[in-house]
């Protein structure tokens, strides 16, 4: 910081010599700065990106593709909302993708109506949760609600574990959730011997695939959850506490904020929302898949951070995350349309997360200076 100050004071006289040019440059700087700090920055970015691609891939604006983009947003948003809570309390949850996988397997195991003994006989759940004719609940009216509750419950429980490890045991969040990712995805694979569980009830599949005219069910459910999440953050005591803990934990402790409980709640919400995302993703696949979501980790963290929620904590909004998710879904869609190979997709996504993190640093510095 000290060096930066020195060099700045050395540069500024040079600028003033250039006179008029300085004014123009200063104005550009100011506009750029305002743009960068704007709440809608990523929305603008998405629109510009879309308009830029339009001439090259006209298909991107076809009604069908726009419908795709629209319906792809909601499952990802569900997961990203959970991540937003954790980032606000200055944590991170890298285990979300493994929660999705494990939860999809558990939910499917409860609902499935038929299993191939050759594939599943050796699975540890065989004879416990299911047999060749599916689970004991298969086909009953109870199957769907029990499965959904179990999925969300397990998600929340894993969140409870993560939160406890972070808040009570003082483990670094990225480390404990990284190893959690390893553990829970291994668990999902172990439970199914790496096989997909299919033959799920139609009602469940409809959750992922059903639409009212062109609007998917997921829009209504995740939309409502998003509004609830934003309401929680901006209107309730808990919301204020989230920001306080993320901004300065020590001040929060002195001010009587139940810091441990607040942090644990954030991780529980993260697990819960990962499970909600998992419901839509696995319903769309019509299967419980032990590797579900394994490629989504970057999308979730990237979308949340590029939206404007800070990795350093204390700053974030659900609306920002919505924009970030829009950007990522658009990016994904365009890379698909461009028919880019898997390697390019990886290169682009890796770079985008670096860009998002760089933006976060730049924004933080800009606000600190003003």
């Amino acid at each position, binding site marked *: 910081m000290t060096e930066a100050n020195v060099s700045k004071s050395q540069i500024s006289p040079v600028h003033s010599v250039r006179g008029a040019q300085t004014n123009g440059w200063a104005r550009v700087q100011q506009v750029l700065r305002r743009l960068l700090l704007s709440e809608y920055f990523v929305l603008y970015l998405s629109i510009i990106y879309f308009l830029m691609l339009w001439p090259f891939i006209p298909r991107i604006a076809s009604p069908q593709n726009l419908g795709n983009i629209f319906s792809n947003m909601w499952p990802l948003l569900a997961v990203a909302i959970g991540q937003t809570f954790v980032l606000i309390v200055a944590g991170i949850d890298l285990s979300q993708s493994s929660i999705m996988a494990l939860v999809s397997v558990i939910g499917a195991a409860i609902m499935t109506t038929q299993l191939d003994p050759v594939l599943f006989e050796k699975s540890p759940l065989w004879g416990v949760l299911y047999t060749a004719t599916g689970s004991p609940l298969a086909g009953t009216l109870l199957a769907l609600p029990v499965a959904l509750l179990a999925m969300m419950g397990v998600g929340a429980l894993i969140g409870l574990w993560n939160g406890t490890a972070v808040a009570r045991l003082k483990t*670094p969040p990225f480390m404990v959730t990284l190893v959690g990712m*390893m*553990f829970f995805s*291994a668990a999902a694979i172990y439970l199914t011997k790496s096989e997909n569980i299919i033959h799920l009830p139609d009602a469940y599949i409809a959750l992922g695939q059903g639409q009212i005219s062109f609007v998917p069910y997921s829009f209504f459910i995740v939309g409502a959850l998003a509004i609830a999440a934003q309401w929680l953050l901006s209107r309730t005591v808990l919301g204020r506490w989230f920001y306080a803990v993320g901004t300065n934990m020590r001040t929060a402790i002195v001010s009587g904020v139940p810091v441990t409980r607040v942090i644990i709640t954030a991780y529980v919400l993260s697990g819960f929302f990962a499970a909600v995302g998992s419901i839509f993703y696995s319903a769309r696949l019509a299967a419980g898949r032990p590797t579900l979501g394994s490629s989504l980790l*970057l999308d979730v963290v990237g979308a949340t951070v590029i939206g404007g929620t800070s*990795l350093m904590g204390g700053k974030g909004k659900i609306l920002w995350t919505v924009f970030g998710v829009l950007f990522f879904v658009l990016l994904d869609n365009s890379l698909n349309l461009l028919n880019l190979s*898997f*390697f390019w997709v990886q290169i*682009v996504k890796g770079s985008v997360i*670096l860009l998002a993190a760089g933006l976060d640093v730049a924004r933080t510095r800009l606000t600190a200076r003003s």
Partner: protein
Amino acid sequence: MNTNRRTLQLVLQNTPYILFVVVFLIFGLLSPRFFTVQAAETILKQASYIGIVAVGMTFVILTGGIDLSVGSNMYVSAAVAGLLMQNLKAPVWLGLLVCLGVGVIFGLVNAFLITKLKIVPFIATLGTMVAGKGVGLLFSQSIQIPFPDSVLQLGSTRLFGIVPLPIVIFGLVVLAAHLVLTMTPIGRRIYAVGNDADAAQKAGLQVDRVLATVYIASGLLAALGGFVSVAQQGVVHPGFGEGYEFNAIAAVVLGGTSLFGGLGTVFPGTVLGAVLIQMIQTGLIFTKVDIYMQPLITAAIILFAILLDAFRNTQLQKLRRRNIRTDKDIAAGAVSSA
């Protein structure tokens, strides 16, 4: 002053040894084959490449950072070297040199992101991990790349007809790293930065240069580890290196190096950790544990090591908290030191 506290402290200081012995005994009792020289050699040989990577990771973690990109790095550098040797018939020494060069580039990129753009290490290296893997697959077009037979022969050579070459290389790396950390200025400064980066800045240390050094070292050693590994297996398959960052981090943490920085050793620490993690994996195979169960157990053990590290860190912080030394304490101290 308090026996319980003393015991606790003793246990916390020596967890790597205790874990090592316990795991060794458990597997040994479950499978007598585990106690043979043959088994020991297999474990050491397989521990060597992950050990080399873990040595680099130790440098990074000692500064309080992390390098998640080592797995991708291993893949890319080995793939490039393989292509060079296979398609352009480059000699082995050139292949190795280029391999190490690619590793250094990885390290440079990480160092740039972390010291210049000030991106937190785990996000920066997460980004290079994903993007780097993409670049590697772009080069290889997702096709297996074989290493020439001459390299494979090297991989199975024994020094003086006794010690397998990979183990020798691991030994040399450990020796060099140990000397650097304990005997050179940069080594001591790595510990200083890990202890308190702000204080280091205030003391006039070039913190950025220290950080750049550790990420470059990690990149270099990851590439070397990748080369040594492929020299044993013969081909670089598209999944090569995936998840190896976990094993490397696990080896470092199991070896008693703290994720909070400033505390830990390459020797004996990381060496013990690397052998321990390999011992667990080999042990699980020897005792015929369900292959789907194995990663679960490995993850659980790593988790245990991390929780233990966090616990040790909070204990240390409690000890470090400012104590007002009463006259009684001072008198007691004078007596005990006399």
